[in-house]
């Protein structure tokens, strides 16, 4: 999966100026999520829930090796195959074998951000398999050839009209089809895929160590179908998704659903312990269950004493929904599978700071995200850590360093600073436009103008 975070500013500018409807669509969707989330937590002791959830996740991460081994043992006892993958190439190899040995021609996929990280779809296609994204939002963007724009709602940047157009082109629905008609068309086509695919691929919201259970939350039923109908089910799970005990699951299911969409719980939850069919002594279900435990940079983040807390993330998307910066563009501006606040703090850890710049700076540091994170990830603090590292590693621009150097020199010399502030109120715009960095102010804004004496002048005269 390619990272395009370097282009953040240009991509953001294009989205804002050339496709303002995207900004509108994202604004509407995120505002709705925010309102629903607030209602869902209104009668809850949010403090107690987030404190407890933080504790459980931190405990799981600090004892991760033991819990991973326990989960593996439980799964193997039930007849599942457990694979360990360090990076995308390992995962590709696992899938290559399965596709080859089982003659897989069709794959039905449930939404999995991890599979995006690993570039799975293009790889499966290169193996000659036809891949169907079955989550409706993912299906829409698959038809459009776009990456997901949001962790929970991949197509929130697309309007009803956008969907009508692409469905008319590809599925032959009428140009003015209602949402119900569009959904029915997708349902029919994807139902055929469910019934004929040899392989179903999913991610995993949680992996319960005590029972080796994979928990998956959804509203449509496509995950239930993808993990029940095809002969083989492969679940891709990041190693950080571990929950220690069966008893922990109920609260995490509820907290994640409330944080994401404001529901008490998703319409469907699949809690998977092993294969079904004859392997599991059941009337149906997959004959083979493969669980792939994926690192892909997670151990690097875990080893980082200042950033490891980001691994508590349950992928609810609440931080994206509340973020006033994300809201202006949607996820595509960030050029990475995880966008918004969590993308800016997890990405540099998983992929590397240099590739992910300027994302830690693509934030006004307003702090709203920290207030809604159900596992209390201190996102503003983590942004600060990455920014500091960027400066220390010399990754910020010379221009920026020079300007800040000048500012520091002025700010520590009282009279110089007083003079500079006075002058700032009289700077004509044509000068500001030529100043490095500060010229960006003139994009969209007038420069400050003097409006009477400065505070210093009043103070010196004796304010009364």
């Amino acid at each position: 999966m390619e990272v395009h975070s370097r282009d953040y500013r240009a991509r953001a500018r294009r989205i804002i100026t050339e496709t303002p409807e995207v900004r509108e669509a994202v604004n509407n969707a995120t505002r709705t999520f925010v309102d629903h989330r607030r209602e869902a937590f209104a009668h809850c002791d949010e403090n107690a829930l987030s404190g407890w959830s933080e504790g459980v996740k931190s405990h799981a991460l600090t004892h991760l090796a033991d819990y991973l081994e326990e989960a593996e043992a439980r799964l193997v006892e039930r007849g599942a195959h457990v694979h360990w993958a360090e990076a995308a190439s390992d995962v590709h190899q696992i899938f290559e074998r399965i596709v080859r040995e089982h003659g897989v021609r069709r794959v039905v996929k449930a939404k999995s951000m991890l599979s995006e990280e690993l570039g799975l779809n293009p790889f499966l296609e290169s193996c000659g398999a036809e891949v169907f994204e079955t989550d409706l939002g993912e299906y829409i963007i698959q038809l459009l050839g776009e990456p997901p724009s949001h962790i929970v709602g991949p197509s929130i940047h697309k309007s009803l009209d956008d969907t009508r157009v692409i469905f008319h082109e590809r599925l032959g629905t009428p140009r003015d089809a209602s949402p119900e008609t569009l959904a029915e068309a997708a349902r029919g086509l994807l139902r055929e895929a469910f019934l004929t695919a040899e392989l179903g691929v999913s991610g995993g919201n949680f992996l319960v160590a005590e029972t080796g259970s994979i928990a998956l939350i959804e509203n449509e039923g496509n995950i239930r179908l993808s993990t029940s109908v095809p002969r083989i089910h492969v679940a891709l799970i990041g190693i950080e998704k571990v929950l220690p005990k069966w008893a922990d699951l109920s609260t995490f299911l509820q907290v994640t659903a409330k944080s994401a969409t404001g529901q008490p719980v998703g319409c469907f939850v699949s809690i998977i312990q092993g294969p079904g069919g004859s392997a599991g002594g059941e009337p149906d279900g997959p004959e083979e269950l493969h669980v792939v435990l994926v690192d892909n940079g997670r151990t690097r983040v875990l080893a980082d004493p200042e950033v490891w807390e980001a691994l508590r993330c349950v992928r609810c998307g609440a931080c994206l929904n509340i973020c006033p910066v994300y809201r202006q563009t949607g996820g595509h501006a960030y050029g990475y599978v995880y966008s918004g606040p969590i993308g800016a703090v997890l990405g540099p850890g998983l992929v590397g700071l240099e590739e992910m710049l300027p994302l830690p700076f693509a934030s006004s540091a307003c702090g709203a995200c920290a207030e809604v994170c159900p596992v209390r990830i201190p996102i503003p603090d983590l942004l600060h850590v990455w920014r500091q590292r960027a400066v220390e590693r010399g990754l910020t621009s010379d221009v920026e360093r020079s300007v800040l150097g000048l500012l520091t020199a002025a700010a520590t010399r009282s009279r110089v600073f007083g003079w500079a502030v006075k002058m700032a109120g009289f700077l004509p715009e044509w000068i500001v436009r030529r100043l490095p960095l500060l010229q960006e102010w003139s994009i969209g804004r007038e420069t400050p103008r003097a409006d009477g004496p400065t505070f210093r002048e009043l103070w010196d005269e004796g304010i009364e």
Partner: protein
Amino acid sequence: MKRPEQTVRPSVNSGTRASNEPKHEREQRMSRNARERILNRVRDANRDREPVSHPGPLPEAAEPPGPFGEAGRADPVGSFENCFRAAGGEVVRFANEEAACRWLEEFAGGFESASVCTGVPNALHPALPGVPPSEAALGVSLAVGAAAQTGSLLLSSKEGRRSQLLPPVHLVWVQAEDVRTTLGEALQACRKDLPATLALHSGPSKSADIGQILVTGVHGPGRIIAAILGADGVRS
């Protein structure tokens, strides 16, 4: 054909790299090596870190309410009904099996065929031609439990999953005494004998992915009816 079991213990030898090593064995060896490297990195990462203790069970006072709360404990079936309906599900209640059967006869009249899960008692089968789940108009199953807190029905894969997923309408029988208050309690009751998949169904299938407009019946059943047996008062 049974695959060789994955070993759980760390392998002592990294294995011979003989050029005639079968591909799948080489892949298994590489997976074991990946396993070792990953687990070692995890252990190294946590080596100097202060371990965090598990906070224990969630305090009862912190259990999410909503339509639940005090009323939930007093009347789990009523709370379940409120929550399930709020999500778009339908609920019917019957004091006894006779009443249920009478209702079923009328209800089944609206369908051409059915696919029934193995766990459903004969008396509660609709008198309809049985067809494969992918062709049935109605799917019927028996829940192994329910949770009032989240309005969830708990379904076991032991009964067959396709009937719970493929027909557009899903009728779920559940005993009133199996309706627990919290989701945690409902899950705990299933802990001993977990099927390959324990599923929670908490309403009809839905999506707002098309321009943020809600549609139902996207993949799973667009209509789900919880039929509660042994519950006083018929609210339908």
